């Protein structure tokens, strides 16, 4: 039996997408879990970007970790993967814009991506470039899932009657 490269990709895609889905789920779950324990610190991390009044930052800082955990869980079970991936992509774009804007304004902050950041110790340097590259990688994962939302071991698959 001859398998063409094309049909091989047809077989491989759901597996690649599955890895992307689970990877993105892990990203959201970790990011949310690291913030959810101290909502005041999460508020300070958001406020550190100086793009909204403190009272708004407080609400965003409190809501964000729960949204991240919910997105992580939804991706983990694979429910409406295309939509959750699209929302993930949107959030990544917002985060990248935020970091780029902090960078452009010369703010010296920790992005608070995987921590309640905000504060940078003395001698510690900002890592905006790396933060943006990492978020771009996550954006790529999200984009891949929007494009190819069919994955293995997903609730979507079960609901659609796929094996």
């Amino acid at each position, binding site marked *: 039996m001859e398998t063409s490269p094309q049909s091989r990709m047809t077989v491989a895609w759901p597996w690649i997408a599955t890895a992307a889905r689970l990877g993105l789920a892990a990203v959201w779950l970790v990011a949310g879990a690291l913030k959810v324990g*101290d909502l005041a610190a999460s508020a300070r991390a958001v*406020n550190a970007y100086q793009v909204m009044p403190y009272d708004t930052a407080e609400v965003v800082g409190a809501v964000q970790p729960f949204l991240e955990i919910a997105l992580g869980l939804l991706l983990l079970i694979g429910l409406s993967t295309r*939509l959750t991936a699209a929302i993930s992509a949107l959030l990544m774009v917002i985060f990248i814009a935020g970091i780029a804007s902090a960078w452009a304004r010369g703010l010296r902050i920790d992005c608070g991506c995987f921590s309640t950041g905000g504060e940078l110790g003395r001698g510690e340097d900002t890592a905006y470039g790396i933060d943006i590259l990492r978020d771009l990688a996550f954006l790529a994962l999200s984009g891949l899932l929007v494009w190819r939302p069919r994955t293995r071991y997903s609730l979507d698959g079960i609901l659609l009657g796929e094996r």
Partner: protein
Amino acid sequence: MSSGKNRAAKARQIVAEQKAAERRRTVTLWTSVGVVLVLFVAGLIGYTALSGQDEGKLVIPSTAVDEGTAFAVGTGPVVVDVYEDFMCPACGTFEAASGPTLKQLADSGKITIRFHPVAILDQYSNGTEYSTRAAAASAAAAQEGKFTELHDVLYANRPEENSTGLSDARIIELAASVGLTSDTFVTAVNEGTYKAWATQATETFSKRDFTGTPTILVAGQQLENPTTELLTEAVTTAAG
């Protein structure tokens, strides 16, 4: 005959495909609605958690200055603002390096130090919220006129991040070792009288767009790199 069979088979296939497509649409619609609902509820939980936070009764220490956020040491003309977290390693380094110089400048009447205790590292004390407790204890000490004494002894015994921090009992013990033994102080520490105040002072810190500790300002100008030399220089410049 056979062409009729073929047509029937094709028709069945088309119907099956249409049914499958319809099913996909229905599933997509309802899972999307489900996802939006889940995210909405998650956001609501966050919002409720925020508004449901019980910070206790706010007691602002009467000795506090600068919108009730700081304790002044010295009476000199140049104001030096020092924002510190009692658990922060960089603050410990700053205190060890520049603390004596600051005290000296205050004692010689050149500067007024405004110490702003803030609690940004609560999540690094295994749930005991040492930063908040220590800041609250320092407010209680200020009420007894012994802020500097407690401040210094807490930094001399600064717990590492990700430890449980000093217990209230240990704070009281250390306070006693520097002559702070009043019942009012002990009660304030045990009851966490100034904890809500510490939370509010930390909020003010964030509202002023400061993000890290130590944050040092000389005459309102933030020092990016507060070494003892730059600090002394800035004070001299500000004194004119």
